[in-house]
């Protein structure tokens, strides 16, 4: 354990960068706090409750190239003409996917316990068999310095979903604000080497104070099915913000893209997809399985709670409150799903 000044905290970031990490941490930009790459002109922010984005934006970027390949498409004066590459003679011309694994090691510096829990959830999804190679490459050697959280805002409810503490093995350093300085505790060998200390320490984690607490009974899909969200969703504009800012929403789309300037270079990319959009569940022939906004809202709730419990044995919601705080209509699912107890 070490007592560090603000200056020494910044020193830790520099040291991480020296060790080859891309350090990402909370920083104020345009009136909101975001997780940003901490570089010379990006100032670390330690007085904040929530960030607009979350670790998923770095571990599973919104637009990610899976590979590239050449096609034989050409643009002619009458439009795009696609000729399939033809396999001729004994030496076949085939699609050769060019793949370069993501590089660089990420260090999250100063994220709150709820966000650490979201990394654990993404791990469950992305590292379960078969592991996602792109996520795995980014995840490898991940460094996490947790900034303990004292008090949430009116949208926070991590305690109600059991995500107020850092899961085992998910922190390299714990940082606690104390007066003008910080108490920093090493929680992994990498953490202690950074502090130039020996050994790893156990700590009594700060349990954040909650303004509101809830009791959710959503392990059972049927209980969600029986409820009617029509009133709650009256003002929902289906903007999908709730899924964009959610640290555990990972649904994605895969597309082959090319530019008309050079149609022979095709990129296969993965982008984020939201269950709030109709095309999420439409299939060729015109069938859409989730037709109304009510159905799609319930789907989001089911994926967060009963489906995640069944598939991964943990809650898919970490209680960060982002989907409420950043919803233009402040649609709050908490009393829909459960009841307020404090």
């Amino acid at each position, binding site marked *: 354990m070490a007592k560090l000044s603000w200056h020494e905290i910044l020193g830790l970031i520099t040291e991480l960068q020296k060790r080859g990490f891309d350090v990402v941490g909370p920083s104020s930009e345009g009136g909101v706090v975001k997780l940003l790459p901490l570089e010379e002109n990006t100032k670390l922010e330690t007085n904040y409750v929530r960030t607009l984005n979350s670790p998923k934006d770095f571990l599973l970027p919104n637009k990610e190239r*899976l*590979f590239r*390949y*050449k*096609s*034989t*498409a050409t643009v002619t004066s009458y439009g795009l003409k*696609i000729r*399939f*590459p*033809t*396999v*001729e003679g004994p030496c*076949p*011309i*085939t*699609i*050769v*996917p060019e*793949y370069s*694994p993501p590089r660089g090691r990420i260090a999250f510096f100063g994220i709150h316990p709820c966000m650490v829990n979201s990394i654990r959830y993404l791990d469950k*999804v*992305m590292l*379960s068999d*078969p592991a*996602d*190679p*792109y996520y795995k490459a980014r995840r490898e050697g991940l460094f996490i310095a947790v900034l303990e959280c004292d008090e949430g805002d009116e949208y926070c409810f991590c305690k109600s979903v059991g995500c107020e503490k850092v899961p085992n093995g998910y922190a390299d350093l714990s940082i606690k604000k104390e007066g003008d300085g910080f108490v920093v505790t090493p929680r992994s060998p990498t953490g202690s080497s950074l502090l130039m200390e020996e050994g790893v320490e156990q700590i009594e984690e700060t349990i954040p104070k909650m303004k509101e607490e809830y009791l959710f009974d959503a392990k059972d*899909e049927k209980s969600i099915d029986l409820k009617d969200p029509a009133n709650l969703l009256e003002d929902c504009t289906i903007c999908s913000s709730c899924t964009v800012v959610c640290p555990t929403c*990972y*649904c*994605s*789309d*895969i*597309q*082959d893209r*090319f530019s008309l300037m050079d*149609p*022979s270079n*095709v990129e*296969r990319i*993965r982008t984020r*997809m939201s*269950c709030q959009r109709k095309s*999420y*569940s*439409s*299939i*060729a*022939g015109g*069938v859409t*399985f989730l037709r109304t906004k009510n159905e799609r809202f319930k789907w989001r709730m*089911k*994926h967060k709670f*009963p*489906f*995640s419990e*069944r*598939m991964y044995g943990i809650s898919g919601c970490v209680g960060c409150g982002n989907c409420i705080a950043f919803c233009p209509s402040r649609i709050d699912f908490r009393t829909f799903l459960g009841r307020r107890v404090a």
Partner: protein
Amino acid sequence: MMTMEYNPYLPRPASVNAVREESLETKTLRLSLINWRATFLPGQFVQLLLPGVGEAPFCITSSPSDPKHLELTIMRRGLVTTAAHYMRPGDAVGIRGPFGRPFPVESFKGKDLVIVATGIGIAALRSLILYTIENRNDFGDVTLLYGARFVEDLVYREELKSWAEKIKVIVTLSKPSEKWKGLKGRVTDHLDTIKLGENSLAVICGSPAVMVSVAKTLIEKGLEQKDVYLSMERHMKCGIGKCARCMIPGGFMVCKDGPVFSAGEINLEDVGE
């Protein structure tokens, strides 16, 4: 970078070996796999990449006994499927997979099989049909009940005749022309003609509404839920349980936990309309 880990997102090369017109809207592509083999069982699917167009999932319709070729029967519906209809022998394509959970064919051995297909649903079952024919002695009675609208809609029209030498084949048309001499009506109209015993199992693929009504009828007639198998269809992207597009109620991924499910594993109400 030298020893590359298995990356399920990277397609492997194949080329079109032959194209067969099956019906008005469907073609079968026979693909030769270039320097790799596919190990699979009936019921599994692959993601077919058409360069410059995109990717879509298709059931493998060929028999698992030939690991160097795959046959896909493709109905023209949207972007990828239409492009697939323009493929010619020699064209290069990419394949990801095989993916998904197959029919538990080992546990089917010694049983009487009732195979019910409508429309393009037969594509998902052809591999199983070929498998039962190749291993005919391992199975009891095998009956295929296949429904389509018109004669022109019937897929595998020629093959049906050769199948009929080995298994019982019943074809019914719901909107036949005057010339049609065979059975008329929907598959549900003819379920009564199939005798079900202690030892019977059913396998169904078709539009969601048909699958549900066939499954319900067969269960009413005495089949256990666990002995009624369906092959499901959902929007798919990754094929390995990472994109959540194919998720169905219960929190199952059709690409990984399915596409084959028994009626005991899922709620029939959730299959779709």
